[in-house]
């Protein structure tokens, strides 16, 4: 973009993004990139926003919090982009949101799910997904607590990555189960770079817990499951955040997936109107079905687009406040359903629960959207 002032009709709208294309978060980071690219292409194919084409300017922050700040600094201060949207992962969202905030920019983000994001007093931030991390398992908790007393799991083992998002999911569930008197027998936290899970697995296995809850991103979940399989541990229920929704999950754990649970904010089969278009065009563009990360990025784009269309402007300066105000006051229809936010930018929905059954992952909770019945206890893996 060449200066925020000019918004002549043939000037593209430049959207600045920093993404972890290398480093720890590179894999989900690429998913997010695809989502943004899909959004730009689909929107542009339909004539763009306010009649202007969308142009993405993507920088790589190397999964590094220092870099992500420098990137947004550059995008806003030097490249003078018209809009910015968020990077991947809570760890990078928090510092980058501050830059946007201090330049007065609207900041919709696809991956700052942990509650910390909403405790910073940001006024311009919005998380474009149905629920924050702590609420991901709400439907599962409801289901378990409604079981008859003799079927309810009595003991649970928790293992969570030391990461705001992963811990948020596991501990959200833990708080609810503990409150209902379900005992915690193992509570392990491991650093993000852990690769050897045999000791944690040994602890879990020896506790013989009825249920296992893993607060995982992806690979850590896989490693934990393999280590548990090596020790021949067979829980009645196993739930993991992140990992099981990944396309490579099944083969990674030797296809012994039957019964594994996972929360998700997105399903390609969801009935929302824009989702059909998204899935179809995404497939055409990338030759595969979109995943949660792609969908979240796409959702982010949808929210921004809605605000821009409503406010009738897209540039730095006063326009940004108009956009922020609009998002605060309105509900947006997205590929993950209708979204609205509280004052801190926290979405107000809940995640669905999926379960691996017969070699594919199906939505089992909540009742109204389920694709299959809940399998409990889960078969041996």
């Amino acid at each position, binding site marked *: 973009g060449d200066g925020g002032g000019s918004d002549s009709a043939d000037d593209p709208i430049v959207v600045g993004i920093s993404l972890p294309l290398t480093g720890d978060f590179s894999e989900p980071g690429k998913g997010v990139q695809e989502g943004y690219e899909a959004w730009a292409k689909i929107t542009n194919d339909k004539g763009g926003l306010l009649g202007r084409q969308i142009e993405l300017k993507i920088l790589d922050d*190397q999964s590094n919090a*220092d870099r992500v700040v420098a990137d947004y600094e*550059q995008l806003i201060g030097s490249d003078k982009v018209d809009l910015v949207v968020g990077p991947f992962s809570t760890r990078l969202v928090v510092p980058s949101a501050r830059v946007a905030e201090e330049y007065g920019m609207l900041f919709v983000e696809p991956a700052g799910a942990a509650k910390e994001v909403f405790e910073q007093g940001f006024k311009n931030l919005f998380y474009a997904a149905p629920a924050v991390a702590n609420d991901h398992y709400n439907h599962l908790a409801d289901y378990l607590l409604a079981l008859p007393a003799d079927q309810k799991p009595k003991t649970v083992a928790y293992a969570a990555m030391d990461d705001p998002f992963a811990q948020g999911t596991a501990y959200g569930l833990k708080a609810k189960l503990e409150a209902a008197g379900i005992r915690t027998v193992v509570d392990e936290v491991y650093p993000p770079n852990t690769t050897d899970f045999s000791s944690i697995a040994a602890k879990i296995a020896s506790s013989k817990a009825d249920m296992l809850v893993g607060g995982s991103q992806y690979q850590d979940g896989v490693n934990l499951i393999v280590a548990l399989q090596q020790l021949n541990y067979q829980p009645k229920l196993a739930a993991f955040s992140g990992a099981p929704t990944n396309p490579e999950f099944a083969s990674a754990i030797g296809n012994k997936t039957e019964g594994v649970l996972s929360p998700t904010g997105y399903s390609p089969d969801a009935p929302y109107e824009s989702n059909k278009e998204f899935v179809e065009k995404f497939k055409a563009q990338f030759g595969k079905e979109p995943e949660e990360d792609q969908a979240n990025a796409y959702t982010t784009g949808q929210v921004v687009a809605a605000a821009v269309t409503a406010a009738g402007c897209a540039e730095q300066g006063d326009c940004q406040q108009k956009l922020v105000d609009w998002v605060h006051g309105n509900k947006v229809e997205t590929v993950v359903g209708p979204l609205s936010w509280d004052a801190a930018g926290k979405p107000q929905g809940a995640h669905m629960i999926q379960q691996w059954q017969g070699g594919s992952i199906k939505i089992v909770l909540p009742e109204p959207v389920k694709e299959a019945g809940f399998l409990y206890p889960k078969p041996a893996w």
Partner: protein
Amino acid sequence: MLLAAAVLSFPSLAPNPYILSAGIVVLNYAVLSTSWNFVGGFTGYISLGHGALAGLGGYGTALLVTKAGLPSFVALAVAALLVALLAVPIGLAALRVRGASFVIVSIALVLILLLVFQSWASFTGGSRGLVVPRPFPGLLRPEHHRVFFYLFAALLALALLVWWVIDRSRFGLGLKAVREDEDKAEALGTPTFAYKLIVFVISAGFTALAGGLYALWFGDLDPVFQFSILTGSYLVLMALLGGVRNLFGPLAGALIVGVALEYFKGQFGNTPLHLVATGLLLGLVVMFMPDGVLPAIGSLFRRFGKSEQSSIREVTAAELQEERKREEVKQ
């Protein structure tokens, strides 16, 4: 002089706040690598762990602001003092060993602090990170940058001044003797351990100041980035690249590496090849300019001058004796 003028006029010349913030990052690197050079340059103890000291400064400042409610800059000073104090036991342990063992200890320092700051979440915020309140809450971001630019410049000037004073002093000569041969220095009456410890503490203090100032400017702390070997090694790279025996070596190195990192990022933005480029740069320096850029330039100029002198005497023993005899007669 020229340099000072260039640094001071930078904020008004910087075309946009981003360039200014990049300038701050480079200045921060310059302060850090100059601080590193107190230990690395004088005593030859290569520490890959200075990133940890900066991290401690940052976390110290942040915790003093958030937990103890101290005003930002008081917290900064107190944190730097605390880190300097903490450097005494660290130095007592680490400086006992030389050479490669010291390198390993310094790496261990980073890793152990990383583990502590990650695990001790109730105090440090763990991997959730820690948010540092803004010292000047009312300030707009460009203004904020400008203020911090001058603060970093002042800190750099102070660090350079102290380095210069030590460099030309007897204390400095003693430190250099430690670098060359510690036992010999000791035998000549240099209290080598005390010297090393003092300079380590000074270095730690400056490093912590830089780290704390950075925390105040940046606002977010994450243990993974505060306690990283990579940061520590960038400092070494910069100091080495510029020339560790040179007052302005680390500064020059910070400029070159800082700009190079930006450039590589621009060139190879979407691939990890920027790591390769950094690695190659470091490798080239080690192989071809082990004394640094500034000395390399210096010797280039000298080579255009006269050729190196032989250390061999130019007079025969007989002539020498004649000469001596004459001198004796004179006396």
